[in-house]
Structure formats: C-alpha cells, structure tokens
C-alpha cells in the first residue's frame, strides 16, 4: 500500500492504494465517482475514460501511481473544465456536449455515454469544428451496443455549433 496524491476535478485527494491499482477502481470506489465505469478492463471500449491533463485516457489499465501530479477530469468535472478552458465567468450546469446529448435524445441505456462525452469533449477542445469524418475517426475507439452512434454524431455536431464563436450562450 502507498499513500497517493491525486488531483481530480480540481480537488486534491489522498488515497491509500497498491501502486499498481488501476485508476478506475480508485475513482469508482475510493472517490465514489460515477462517471468512469468498468466496461472491459482491456482498454477496448472506452467505458472508463477520463481526461488526464486534457488527454482521453483509459483508466481501467492506467496504474494510479502513473497519474500522480497530473490533473484528472471525469464526466462530473467536465462543466468546470470547460468553463476554465473558455474562461467563463461561471461554471455551466453541463458541458455543451452533455447538453447536446440531451437535446438529441441520443442516449439509450447510457452506460457508454461516460466515454462518449469525455472523448467528444476532448475532440472539441482540440478541434472545435470537426467534420463528420473527423468525428467518426475520433470516436472510433468508443463502442456502443445500443446503436446510438448516429445520434452521438449529431450531438457532437450540435455541441460544436453551440461552442463556436458567435453562438448564443
């Protein structure tokens, strides 16, 4: 066991864990976050995705010891992460990608939407106006079993439009 310092959603957290513990289990059990969740444990599906220093990362295969001193953002922290990025005066209730998923009624069971939203947020931070091929390519490592891909694509396009300069806030 080791005492490990983590920065999660802008908060400093201290956990006692074996250094090889995958970050996912720390986030889900020790920190009681509901965003990242187990899907495959093999980095094949994207269920457990979080942002580490803004980069989408599979927490199911990332040892917690590899993350010290880095900034972790989970689904729950995306609105604040977005506000900081955009230098907004206040933190919105939802990241534009989350809002767009509601507006498009994109969700079915919704279990994969942690990864979908985290990955799409990363994409739009890097490329605010992706074309459809770029969206499909960026999202290709995220699986959905219910068949929501078409609506997820539409939602990302909607979020992109909402985030673009001149879009009403």
């Amino acid at each position, binding site marked *: 066991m080791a005492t490990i310092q983590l920065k999660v959603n802008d908060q400093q957290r201290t956990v006692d*864990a*074996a250094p*090889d*513990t*995958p970050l996912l*289990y720390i986030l*889900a*059990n020790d920190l*009681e*976050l*509901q*965003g990242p*969740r*187990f*899907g*495959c*444990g*093999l980095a*094949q*599906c994207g*269920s457990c995705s979080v942002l580490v220093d803004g980069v989408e990362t599979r927490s199911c295969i990332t040892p917690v010891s590899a993350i010290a001193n880095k900034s972790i953002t*989970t*689904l*729950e922290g995306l609105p604040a992460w977005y506000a900081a990025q955009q230098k907004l005066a206040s933190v919105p*209730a*939802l990241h534009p990608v*989350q809002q767009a*998923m*509601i507006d498009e*009624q994109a*969700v*079915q*069971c*919704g*279990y*994969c*939407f*942690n990864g979908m*939203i985290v990955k799409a947020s990363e994409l739009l931070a890097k490329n605010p106006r992706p074309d459809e091929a770029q*969206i*499909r*390519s960026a*999202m*290709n*490592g*995220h*699986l*959905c*079993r*219910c*068949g*929501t*891909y*078409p*609506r*997820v*694509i539409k939602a990302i396009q909607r979020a992109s439009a909402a985030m673009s300069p001149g879009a009403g806030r």
Partner: protein
Amino acid sequence: MSLPRRDFLKSGGSLIIGFSLSGSVFSHSALGQSHLDPVSRPPVPGPPDARQIDTWLAIHSDNTATIFIGFAELGQGNSTALLQVAAEELDLDMSQLKTVRLDTSITPNQGGTYSSASIQRGGPQVRTAAAEARQALLQMASQNLGVPADQLAVSKGVVAAKNGASKSVTYGALIGDKPFHLAFTGTAPVKKPDEFKIVGTRAVRNDIPDKVSGKYSYMQHQRLPGMLHGRVVRPRGQAQYAVGAKVRSVDEASIKSIPGARVIRKGDFVGVVAPTEWDAVRAARDLDVTWDNTPTLPGDDGLFRAMRTSKTTDKVILERGDVAAALATGARAVSQKYNAPYQAHAPFGPNCALADVETDSALVKCSTQDVYGTRTSLARVLNLPLDKVRVQYYEGSGTYGHSCYDDAAQAAALLSQGAGKPVRLQFMRWDEHGWDNYGPAHIGEVRAAADANGKIVAYDYHGWQHNWSLVETSEQLALGRPAAEWPSSAAQGVSAANVGNVYATPNLRITNHTLPGTAFLKGAWLRSPLDLSVSFASEQTIDQLAYLLNLDPVEFRRRNITDPRWMGVLDAATKAANWTPRPAWANKSTDKIVTGRGVGLGTHLVSYGGAVAEIEVNKETGKVVAKHMYGAIDAGLTVNPAFVENQISGQLVQTCSRMFYEEVTFNARGVKSLDWSTYPILRFEECPEVTPVVVQRVDQRSSGAGEEVMAAAAGAIANAFFDATGVRMREYPLTPERVLAALNA
C-alpha cells in the same frame, strides 16, 4: 441506498398502505442514490395485490402521483412512456408523475420485461388503473364541490366544474397520501384516441439528464456498508452446456499474498472475495484452479454439420394446402440453405449484482429483466423461503435479452452467503462474453415457388435450432443441478408469426427440427430471437423468386401481401428510401466497389417491421459497409413516437453489427470469443446513416417496438448484397473472408 442489515424484510404481514413522502424508510448514501428512490412505501414481501388500485398508484398531498410499474427501464424509455399512459388517464402533467424502482417488496408483478412488451402488456393495466383512480377522485370531488361528477373537468390534477364556477379542488387535497382502498375492476372507461393529449406525443425521457451528467446510479454503482468485492473464477469460455465446468483442484495458497482475499467454493462454483476491488480482480486472475477440460463440442467449424446430423425432435407447426405438389407446379422454384451463428448479448458493461445474504433472509440488487423470476431462482439457490428474499432492480448496461444477469445475481448471493458479508460481484469481460446465454445458431432450409403472375404458390421452411437454457451457470456449478432446457415456445423456433403470416400463399408448411440444447452452447433470447436468422433465410428466398421472375422485389412482395399492416410498413420503408422499381442485380457492374439496395420484412411475434438497406461491397477486400438503413415499424398505437424512432435507429445499427461482425467462436473445448477484439462489433466509422419511420395506428392495440425492424433489416442487408454482386450469402456475418469465398465460389 443503504439499509440496515436485517431491517429490510421486517415489515411483514399484510399490505401496509399509507405512503411515506419523507423517504424515512430509506436513507441514502452519497453513492448509489437515484431519482427512483425518494418516494416509496413500506416494503412488504410482494407481489402486492394486483386487484387493488393502491398497488398501482398513489396520489400525494402535493398533487403529484407515484405510479408503481412492474417493467424494467432498459434504456428504451418505457418508464417514461408508461407514465404518459398514466398521465393521460389521470389528467396530470408529466411533471407531476414519477415512478419507483422495481422491487419485489414494492412494485407489482407484471411479468418480466420480455418481448419488448412493456407497453403491450403493461400499458392496458396502467391505463385502466389510472382511469379507475380518476373515476374515484371525481366522485370525491363531486361531494367536495357539490357538483355532479359528470359536470367536472380535470386539468393537471385540479378538479373544477365545467361551467366555469370558481370552486376547485386538487387530487392532493382529496386523498393526499391516503389509500383508495378500492378494488381494481378494470371497468372504468378509458379515453378514446381523439381525446389523447399526452399519449402519442414526444415527451422526453426522464432518465437522460442524469445519464449524461454522471448522476444516474447504475447497478454497477451500488454499494453496501461493510461489503466485499467478489469475482467468479471459471474457465475462460464456456464448454458444452451439459458439461458446465468441473473443478479438479483449487490451490488456495496461490493467492495467499493478496491481503484479505478468500476463496469461496460451493461444488464447482468458485469465486473470490476481497476488501478492495483490485484485490478481488487479482485474486480471480491468480487463483490456481485446475479444470477438467474434455473436448466435447463440435467447434464452430463443425457446428452446422453437427446440427444437421444430430437427432432432432421434429414438429410441423403450420401446414396448409399441398406444399409438395405446389412446389412441382410453380413456374419458378427455389431451394436454398442458410446458416446463422451463435451471437452474444455482450452488454457493454458486464453484469453486476450486490447481495446481502443472512442466515434467514437475503437482499439482492441486480439488473434482472424480471425481479420476481429472479427472486424465485435466488430462493432456490440460497434455500430460503420466497418471502425472505428481496430483489431490487437497478439498471445496468443494455442487456438485449437474457444476458448473465441472473447468473450474476446468483453468484453474488452465493459469495455473500459464503463470506457472511454483503458482496458486490461484477463479471469480468471474459465472464460475460464467455458464459453468456447466446442467441442460438440456426439453419434454415427454404423451398418456395411462384407462378408466372408473380404469386407465391408454395412455401416450405425447415428450421434447425435448440431451445433456451433453463439452469443458470452459478446454480449448475454450485448445486450440481443438471443442465436443462426451456419447454418449447413460439419464440424459440420458426413460428407462424415470423414466416407464416407475412405473405399469402395457399400452400405452406413450417417445420421445426429441435436439437438437444444441452449438447451445444448455452442459449437464451437475444433481441429479436431467431428472427434475424429466419428473415435472412426467408427474405432472401422471396427475393430470389422475384429475381427469377424479373420483378422488382418490392412489386413482387406487394403482389403477395394481403394484410394492410404488412403493406403499410413495406410502403413506409420503401418510400423513405425513395425506392425506384427495378429487378435486383440490374446494375451489373465490374467495378471494384459496387453498391446495392435491398428490402426486407420481419417481425418478432406481433408488430410489423419493414426495412431497406443501401450497402457498398468491396469485391477485392470483401468488406461490406451499410451506407444508409431505413426502418419502419407498425406497433399499433405508439405511445411515444420519439422513443420508437430511437428504438428503430438502434435496431438498424445493431443489425448491421450482427450481420457484418458478430459470431461466437469456439473449439471443441470451449468458447474463444471473449472480448471486443475476438468478438468485434460495429464502430463509428462504419455506422450507416439511419432513417426511422413510425407507422402510427391509434386504432390498434399497442405492441412491441424494440425488435421487429432487426428481422426486416437482416433480410434487407442480405438482399442488398445480392443486388450489388449477384451472389447470395448463405451464412452471416458477412465478414471479408466469407464474402470473398462466396464471390470466388
């Protein structure tokens, strides 16, 4: 939700009515709280009496209502749609209604959430209960206001005289949190379609905001104080169903370096528990178990040969006219054979369950589609009386039928019983993929003939498949209960519904050749069970007749459909696709990449599905991609067209996945497709555009809407392949290897 151990079953005796608004019966922990929990009533071993109005709904003092529903929300929106049905009859706004989680000590038993039938079976019950409650409330209001009931009108739960008099009273003031004490007779008149204000509208899903924010509490988020984490230890990939798994030896010393990890064993059921999840995962990985590993399966390469040579139980389930004679006289006749693989449910998040088993009672939280059915199985496994077992439903990841949710519930219960503590059990990816109750493989041999006018004169379908598995793996291993199958039922074989009633033909025969299921892999209902396989075979046969007659495949179908509802979905799908008539494979092309379009019809027992597929085939690589899929459904009265459109979209995408990618692979010793690499599914880059069409029929009884388009789409894809290449695919999935083999044959 945290419950003090031992307290959750104590409110025994008769049904306690009087609903707690404070939620004082339940307290909430930060993790695992849900919008479904706050309002409930004292738990009493169920099911509550379905003949009492109070079982179905409660009106609260704040003029809101709780509707008690017995169907599981699986992401299809039924928990919202059933509230629409109730809101309509109660004249309440959607914002005034809520429901609670399924719980064998709270909610009524409406049967399991099967066959996409929440609205079909549950709608009438909820509708008539709400109407009867409204009738009683109007009587109370009549006395309260001194106005005859027939002169009262209700809006948002406020009752007032129709003549505009200023006196009014709310439902909440009339009965708030008190029981109706009213027998549910089902006799109250319900609204007519032209009176609907909420049914038929596109109300938004009530679960989506929490699902995108991270507030939604899935099964996988549930915790109990003092619980351990558990994992099962099994061979990677199931063997023959009858064989199960046989332990030769377990070396408990192999995990002694993992702090707090323990082996829990009962018979051939082996699991581990540990205080932290990672230690449970490591213990399951490291525990040294030697299994008996005798090769007894045919393997996927010998599967269809084994299916055709095994002894079967044969039954003609539908026969009219003289098929043999008609086949001989038809102007055009075809005889075709098709194979369909085992496919997996493979929920995106593996099944999870949380059990707290005491010596005399048990609480199990799980993602079952049927809390009462699961309670029965748990009582048997734990050797407890039914009324001492409480099962609560928590939504997990989409399950599409009978995935491992009962197995997971049993495993969690066995681990908790063995450990003497609450245990949260989650399957690993390979457990879920490897020990699934797969959608059974199928062989379809179809002969059909048509006359020169394009009328089908003979149709003869022979199907080979096995029935579903009855005994869950945990119970089989722990108690040594022998593998057994479900008794035969329509959904387990080729049926009058899925091929018998689509086209009118005077001479028709359907024969099921039922295989001994315990000799193969485990099986169960997988979304649109067997319908994709049957449509793949049947709709290609129909299409081939059209091709031989040089007829447009839609025109040929029109000539043979008499039911306006089949015609309706055919028209809706082809209109959406802007279908222009021509025979299939008219655009013979020598290009490397060719395109094709195809049509298909299909059902799952009741509703009507139609689909058009537009695909692209690369003849050099063998790669097939769907570019645009169109799907239409007639599910009678559609309570919420937006939800059904989402269901159609999902069905079209999932069908592409199943037709292009999905097959369970196995050798003589067991299943080898254990993750998303060895069991690939469709991804974003190859996802088609989708166009869903709802054929609304307000005058028809509501029926299921979650499966029918899949059957239609499977046939449409296969027919599009023929249109592109002039080659019939005899087996799916249409992988590059299989496509190249067919093109080069």
